[in-house]
């Protein structure tokens, strides 16, 4: 089957910043994304778990976008403007999609 090159951008960010991140992604012209809750993990500040949170302040969320390769720089600039000062991880990976016109 014919597949097409695309970029998969995954951003793990503090939940209070999620709405701002999504707004920045949309402003960058990317209308397709998925948001996933993060169960827990460990980083420079030590381990954390979703179970131990009383508000949304301590939680993390993951936002995933799949885009055409030529839109990557614009998207990363928009993402960086939000995540620059915050805890989080931004990863970019190559992927293949079946229907290129959807991205």
């Amino acid at each position, binding site marked *: 089957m014919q597949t097409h090159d695309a970029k998969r951008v995954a951003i793990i960010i*503090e939940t209070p*910043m999620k709405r*701002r991140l999504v707004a920045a992604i949309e402003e960058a012209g990317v209308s397709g994304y998925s948001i996933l809750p993060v169960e827990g993990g460990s980083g420079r500040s030590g*381990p*954390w*778990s979703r179970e131990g949170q*009383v*508000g949304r302040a*301590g939680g993390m969320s993951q936002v995933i976008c799949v885009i055409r390769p030529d839109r990557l720089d614009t998207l990363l600039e928009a993402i960086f403007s939000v995540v620059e*000062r915050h805890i989080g991880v931004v990863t970019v990976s190559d992927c293949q999609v079946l229907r290129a016109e959807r991205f």
Partner: protein
Amino acid sequence: MDGFFALALTNLSSPLILCFVLGVAAALARSDLNFPEAAAKALSLYLLFAIGFKGGVAVSDHGIDLALGTTLIAGIVLSALLPFIAFGLLRVLTNLDRTNAAAVAGHYGSISIVTFVAGTSVLESQGLMYEGYMVAVAAAMEAPAILSALWLISAGGASNGKSRMDAHLWREILLNGSIVLLIGSFVIGFITGQEGLKEISSFIVSPFKGVLCLFLLDMGIVAGRGLRNSRGSITLGLLAFGILMPIVGAAIGAVAGAALGLSTGGVLLLMVLSASASYIAVPAAMRVAVPEADPGIYLTLSLGITFPFNLTIGIPLYLAAARIVTGG
């Protein structure tokens, strides 16, 4: 003083406190006892709705008077002022930098609605009345402290304070779900009065303490996990602050409550509001506006130290003081 010890003993052996202790113990023992996130959220929504509705009904019974306005203003002033006192105390007792000290201080100007609910529960068990509009005062005290904390940070030249606040953050703070539900149910209670209460009392009055028990069990689990994960990060100075600051806040609340002419119950609740520290609204705002501040410090202090202190020893202590202040 005997009264205080008797009340403290009664409070410590109440189902509410014992449920909280069970939660802390389970978490410290690494039990897998856990509340599903959605269930904990539902319990919280129930408590906010019930306390807001009952407050509205109480105001409906007694009518709106000048005291409501003056107490609201006093609450806003207290919320804005307390962070400065907390900041000063932190600078004396701890070696926190300005940003972390200001972020912690912001939490102590704002309030813990669960501590407030526990305070109302103690008042009801003692047969003491309180002004219904204290619910609105609680809502009004959520946000001003955040501004004080941001001002403390920007005044130190740590960074541009103005850039920390934007319209989105303002909306999130002022229209956060807890405030909207609390004020909304307060207004519904005010509009529908005793008739409305009669219709839903089997839902919001009788089960209230049982639901509060379950919620405090969950809070105990969260507090216990926070304490377990924070071993080593809380110094003696921070521990002293977490216990001293609520007492200082309560004392200021007592003076304000007495000056406003509140009832014994009203003074107690203003003391509880002044003594408690936020662990929901302010941490969320601080993560957005001051990401460089360490949440491990402010969340552990407010939820792991000050909240249990207020719940177990603080409220009986404040009630004894409120009785002395009002002669009640």
